[in-house]
Structure formats: C-alpha cells, structure tokens
C-alpha cells in the first residue's frame, strides 16, 4: 500500500503541476482584469498542437518547439485581449459568453486544420524511464514537475522583483490608482494575457507527449484549474499553486480508496465544500458581504 501511495503522490504532483500552469494563467487574468476566461483550456490545447507542429514540421527540437508554441500563444492571447475582451471589459457576463464562443471557434478550427483524431508526439523523454525502487516513471514526469517548479519561481521573481511585475500587482489592486501614478494599464492587460497564454501553451506542450493531443484535451484541466483557484482563492497566485497541486494529489490518492470513476466526484465535492465553508478560498481575501 505504501508503494501505491508514493506512486500516486508522484502521479498527483505531476498532473497537479499541469493544473498549476492553467490555474496561474486564469488567476493572473482574473486578478488583474477581473476577467474569467473560460477559453483558457482551449489555449492549453492549442499549445499542444503548436508544439507538435513545430516539433515535426519546423524545428525537430522539443525545447525550441515549446518556446515557439509559447511565443505564438502569447501573441494570440494578446490579440484576443485586444479584439474580444477589451471591448467587453465592463461586463463580466458578456466576457464569459464571449469566452464560451471562443471555445467553439478555436476547437472547430483545430478540427478543421488537424482533423478530429488524436495526435501522438513521441519524444525521447516520454519513452525513457526513470526508476525509483519498485516504481518507474517516464522522464517526462520529472521534466513536467521540474519545468513547472522553475516557471513558478520565475513568475514569483517577476511579480515581486521587476518593475513590470510591480505594475501588474498595482493594477490588480486598483486599476484606477495605477493609472493615476502613470501605469499604462492597457499595456499591463496585454502583458497579463501574453503571460497567461504562454503558461497555457507550456502546459499543453508538456502534457501532450505524455498522453495525446486532441481537441478536447484542455476541457478537464480547465475545470480542475477553476476548482484550484476557487480552493486557493480567486486572484491569489500562491492559492493557485497550492490549489492546483492539492487537487492533483487528492484526486490521485483518492483512487486508492474509492472507485476510479468517482475521482472527479471527490474533486468537485471539494469545490462545493470550499464554496460552502470558505468561499474566499485558502489564500483569498474575504470581502464585505461575502458569507
């Protein structure tokens, strides 16, 4: 049982790390702009497809393909901010409807370009095995956990040590006050979408080689990331990290005790429980009028 428990904690950490990347992008956008972008899972999926395309058609190098996918998604996310979300900035309901529309547009575009069948991306790290006593994992497991840890550290340093990061935090606290002190908030919004898009691309590009790349691959990570940011606290970056990892580990370990088809029930049960007991989340700030 102990071996199975260790195995599931490692598996949970790996998939939780992916949830962290998706949750971080969503939490940055929500924290800075109060936009709930439900199309973020589709950006994650596009990251997988673009990395696949770059690897097989352009570069042949996995790191270069990831970088290219992140770059393209950053530009696409900025375009979406400018063309879709900025004109709808005053209405969260309209933004949600627009993001739902974007899911359909982008998913169907992917089907039209790459077809409905799942793509495989066999790279050496997804084939090579790392042994840990009686357990073994692919190198890609280690790469995912390592890459996400490095990304979270870099993002933390960017947000706390750089001028742009400070401006981003200032905008998230009070956009009007930020404008008064000379911060170009429109530029900050664009930057926020770019970072979120790049993080989604990184997630899709890291997970694609381990499993498959298919049009719906972002659906579940989106739902899990939403749960993570509610659990961690809407708008809280540390909350997104802890929430994402917690959900990954809880859902993996729970399958040792309950049937695997009830795994999602545990996760969404946790979401409902959080909303009932602590709706502002683990790291969120309680606001006036909230239960």
């Amino acid at each position, binding site marked *: 049982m102990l071996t199975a428990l260790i195995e599931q904690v490692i598996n949970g950490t790996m998939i939780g790390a992916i949830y962290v990347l998706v949750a971080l992008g969503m939490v940055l956008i929500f924290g800075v702009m109060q936009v709930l972008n439900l199309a973020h899972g589709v950006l994650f999926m596009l990251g997988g497809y673009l990395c696949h395309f770059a690897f097989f058609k352009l570069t042949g190098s996995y790191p270069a393909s990831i970088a290219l996918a992140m770059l393209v998604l950053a530009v696409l996310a900025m375009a979406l901010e400018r063309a879709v979300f900025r004109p709808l900035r005053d209405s969260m309901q309209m933004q949600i409807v627009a993001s739902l529309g974007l899911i359909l547009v982008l998913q169907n575009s992917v089907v039209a370009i790459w077809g409905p069948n799942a793509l495989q991306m066999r790279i050496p790290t997804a084939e090579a095995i790392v042994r840990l006593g009686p357990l073994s994992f692919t190198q890609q497991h280690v790469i995912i956990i390592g890459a996400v840890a490095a990304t979270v550290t870099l993002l933390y340093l960017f947000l706390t040590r750089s001028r742009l990061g400070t401006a981003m935090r200032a905008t998230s606290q009070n956009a009007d006050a930020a404008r008064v002190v000379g911060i170009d908030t429109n530029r900050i919004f664009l930057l926020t979408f770019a970072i979120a898009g790049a993080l989604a691309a990184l997630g899709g590009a890291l997970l694609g080689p381990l499993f498959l790349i298919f049009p719906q691959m972002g659906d579940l990570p989106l739902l899990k990331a939403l749960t993570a940011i509610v659990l961690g606290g809407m708008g809280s970056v540390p909350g997104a990290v802890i929430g994402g990892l917690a959900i990954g580990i809880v859902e993996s370990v729970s399958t040792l005790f309950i049937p*695997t088809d009830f795994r999602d029930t545990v996760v969404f049960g946790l979401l409902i429980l959080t909303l009932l007991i602590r709706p502002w989340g683990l790291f969120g700030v309680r606001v006036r009028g909230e239960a």
Partner: protein
Amino acid sequence: MSASHCGLYRCLLAAAVAAGLAASAHAADGTVTLGIVTAQTGPLAAPGKFQMNGFQLAVDAINKVGGAKIAGKSYEVKLKVYDTRCNAAEGASAMQRLATIDKTPVVLGELCSPVAAAEAPIASDFDMPLIITVPTAPNLTEQGNPYFFRINAENNQLTKALAEYVAARNLSPLAFIAWNNDAGRGGVNGMRAELPKSITPGYVGYFNVGEVDFSSHVANIRNSGAKAVMLLMDEEPGALAIKQIRDAGLNVDLIGTLAMGSNRFLDRLNAKYLSGMAQYNAFPPNLPTPRIKAFNDAYKARFGEESHGFAAQSYDAVNVALEAMAKAGTVTDGKKIRDALAGLSTEGVIGAIKFDAKNQASPPVYITQWCDNGTRSVVFPEAYRADCGGG
C-alpha cells in the same frame, strides 16, 4: 452456396480474372440498391472506413462478373450510403429515409450498438431487413425483432473464447480497465460471468471517454497483485493504457479486444510494448486459409493496407443479402428476403454463416498473440493455431 450467385469469397477470385477484361461479361438487366448506414465522419470515421471498404469491395467484385443473378435476371449492385456518425437520431433518420424515399430492400452496416438499437424498430416497421456487421452489444439480438440480423460475433461469443484462454493459463487475479459505459461495464460483467470461480478479479477500474491518464489504474493494479490486465476499450485509449502500464514497470500479462490486434495498433506503440499480449479477434488477416488469404490479397490490392475484420464482416453481409434475394427470388419483397435470410446457410470470408433463432450468426472467434518481432500468432482455437506471422 447458391448456384444463382457467385457467392462470397469465390467472387474475389472471379473478380480478379474479370478485372483484366475491358468490360463485364454481360450487361445487367436492372439495378438493385442496398442501403448502408455507417459512420463516415466524426470520431469513429476510421472504423467506419473499414466497414465501407468491405461493402465496396464486395459490390465491385459482384459487378465485375456481371452483377447479382436473381430470379433469372442479372442486377448491377449499387449502394445508398448514409453517414450516421454514431448518433442514434441520425441513424433512425437514415433508416426512415432508406425505407420511405430510397425504398431499399435491405439495409447493411452500422458501427455503434446504441445506433443499431434505434434503427432496429424501423427495419421491423417497414419489413426491411437490417443486417448489422460490427456492433457487439449482446442485447441487440435479444429483442425478438424478426428483421434484425447480426453477422458478426457479439460480446458474449467474443468473451467466451477469451475466458477459456484466461482459465487455461490460470491468470488470477485478473484486473480490468474498461470504458465507463454499457460496452465497458457490459464487457466486464460478461467476462466475469464466463470465468470460472478460480479466476478472481484483482481490480476493476472504469474510465470516462476522453480520459487519457491511467496512472490511478496502474497503481491499483500493482496494489492488487494482478497477474493479468484485461483492457476493454478502443484502439486509442488502449494504446495509452498499455504504454502507461509498461512504462510503470508492471509485469503483467495484457489481454485486449479486437481493436488491439492490427498493424494499425502496432504503429501506435511498438513490438516491445505489445510482445506477449493476447486479444480476441474475429478475423486474423494473415491466417493461411484460402478464404482469408483471398480476401486479404484483394483488399491489399485495392486499398493498399492489411485487411480488417470490420471489412470482412461487411463484405460478407453484401453477399449474404444478395444470396437471400436470390433464394427468395425477389429484389423488392422484404418479407420474403427476411425469411430467406433466416434459413440461409453459407460460407463467408469470416467462416460459416448461419443465423440462429434470434438472427445471430456464430462465426469463429480467434485469440491472437503479439510476437517479439511485431507479427501475430493464433493461439486459439486449436484448429486454427498458427505461428508468428499467421495471425
């Protein structure tokens, strides 16, 4: 075999000769159109293509030797195809059109069990026999519908062979990973019902369509001490599950479905992952028997790839339908064609075809096993045992 019809796999040999001629042996006196319902687009377009290839191959072979001979006349055979996309509403709508607008005497095909269930009552309402060639849900032929026929083996027939294989090798405890739907859950229940008490279930895990992470199942299988894992799923999740089981270092026997016994499946993984894996199979394309070899050669020549069980079953369905029409002496009277189908006994490329009282055929079921070099052997039944390369 009916004298009025060139009949089943022999058509292939005749067609090969006829293909060299500039024109058919003689012009047809009329046309008979068979209705086809299958998935040509959507997620199940790939298996639908195998089905369609089988229909087309049969029709071409028959037309090349002058068409189908029915009641003293020769008929050019045509197909009226509807894409049901594995959707019950689309399937029912297509059947309605075939019955009321196209007025086809017989309908063939369907890929998905729930869609076949929706189409069956329409076949009965319009006295239009429906011969399905792929769906395996056992209850489809339990509804007492006299116009509904199934040419392929159903789940219970398939799992019976596999249960004998598992019992003979004492693969206990036996773990399962299966779709969380009627096919997966029905498959697990059917298998457990067939297994002797000495084979205990180590772990039973279900997954939803679209899930790709099998790590939880792998940990539970390891924890259960299972000797073998049975994978009741399609090609895509099957390849992922096998990769994750092997990458996690689990030393278990693998047992799969017919979706996992083709070269297409080998392309998704490699021989190292598949070596030793056994799966039931309705049509081992490399089996050195004349009926299978002739079909496989003709299929390869036409489509440039190894043949598939779905294609063979569909090929036979065309011939069975035409043979029933020849026996009934009509190309329009659905009731007479139904009666002829019910009493038909013939030899197809998949083996002997004879419908029982529930209109279910009982073609042979094989167990193939992957060899180290990426070929397959046949390990069951004894009568068809073949070495690596023969499966």
